[in-house]
């Protein structure tokens, strides 16, 4: 029940940001809408129902720092793309390959985070995830060498559940 209330409050905040109207009529509409959405799809927003709300907030905080670091990486990625697309001998520098590696991350959400981070960082795009196997398209050798697990370690540090033994890894699905 705590989860539903949390989701309801989150949705209500979103509603106020969207609406920008603070009279009773619109706020009442907001309450109805949020209740409706909570009823329709509150099972979607959080998969992991075991974590307490504080744990979630803490994870969210660490996630925010991770995003700041990501933003820098995205910037580097774009400078690389810009250089590559504007350099006159771009075709010599493009040497694509599909790289395979195994991840130690267990939860779906962490894998999702890793995959999207790979997609946003220089020269690599995730093509497929099959279980723990990642297949990544790298634009050249330098990009492929960049997949050294730094990102994975950072993501593993966000989630307490990732540090645990794998025996309960199967039920524990994505956090935040």
């Amino acid at each position, binding site marked *: 029940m705590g989860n539903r209330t949390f*989701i309801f409050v989150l*949705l209500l905040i*979103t*509603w106020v940001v*969207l*609406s920008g*109207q603070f009279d009773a009529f*619109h706020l009442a*509409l*907001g309450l109805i*809408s*949020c209740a*409706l*959405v909570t009823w*329709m*799809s*509150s099972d*979607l*927003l959080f*998969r992991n129902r075991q974590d307490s709300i504080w744990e979630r907030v803490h994870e969210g905080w660490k996630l925010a720092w991770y995003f700041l670091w990501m933003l820098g990486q995205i910037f580097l990625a774009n400078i690389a793309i810009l250089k590559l697309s504007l350099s006159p001998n771009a075709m010599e520098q493009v040497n694509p390959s599909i790289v395979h590696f195994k991840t130690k991350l267990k939860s*779906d*959400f962490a*894998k*999702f985070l890793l*995959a*999207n981070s790979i997609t946003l960082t220089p020269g690599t795009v*995730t093509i497929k*995830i099959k279980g723990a196997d990642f297949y990544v398209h790298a634009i050249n050798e330098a990009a492929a060498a960049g997949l050294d697990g730094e990102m994975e370690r950072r993501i593993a540090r966000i989630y307490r559940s990732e540090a645990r033994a794998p025996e309960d890894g199967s039920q524990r699905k*994505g956090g935040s």
Partner: protein
Amino acid sequence: MKWVGLIAVLFTGGLLLSAMDDFPKWGDAHSPANASPVSQYYIEKTIEDSGVPNMVTAVLADYRGYDTMFETVVVLIAGIAIMAILRVMNQIPGGARPSPRHEIGDHHDIIIGTTCRLLIPVLQLFALYVIAHGHHSPGGGFQGGVILGASFILTAIAQGLDPALERLPEKSYVKLAFAGVVIYSGFGVMCLLLGENFLDYGVLHVLLPGIDAAEARSHSMLGVEVGVAFTVSAIMFAIYANLASKGELEGGL
């Protein structure tokens, strides 16, 4: 074929361009649309009549309520026609290609699944916001309904058609689509019962204590928009579900 198409497009485009001269000037105060007393009335009296800041919504749901009601009916009929045609095609031997079944492979993609999982509730809230704020900002039943329908379609894309249909089964979406039209026309019938013209919402203020005729119009517009949104979102999803699975409502894209 390509050339025939090109020639047809160029010909039609040329015709349209040549007709451009006959248009009134941009922002011309004396163009037929602007000089007509009807539009003058809308511009001057909307706030007074219904207290709705967004004039377009007032015209759509109140002054020209008949039009919008039957637009909703058209949407409903289009959806029903698609369902019916695909069903019939399935019964004719060789009429439809075999539907894609589950052997297509696992549908689960972690990345798409997680993104959609995070996105769908926000999307639904956004849709309801668009519906509810139809009289303040651009929005209303059709737009919000499309976004709401898109959120159901997103469920189907992310998790497969079968889980999506578990959430919103065929029975429910057909009921929802009809409920929309019933809500809309119900407002009209209520006006009739209270002794006014069909869809003349002003009289509805007797049902809710403490509001005047203008407020009654404003609230009825919201109710009507909700009806439109029901129909549009249900039909959006119905069309997707039926087309994606060739009318069989299982497997699918």
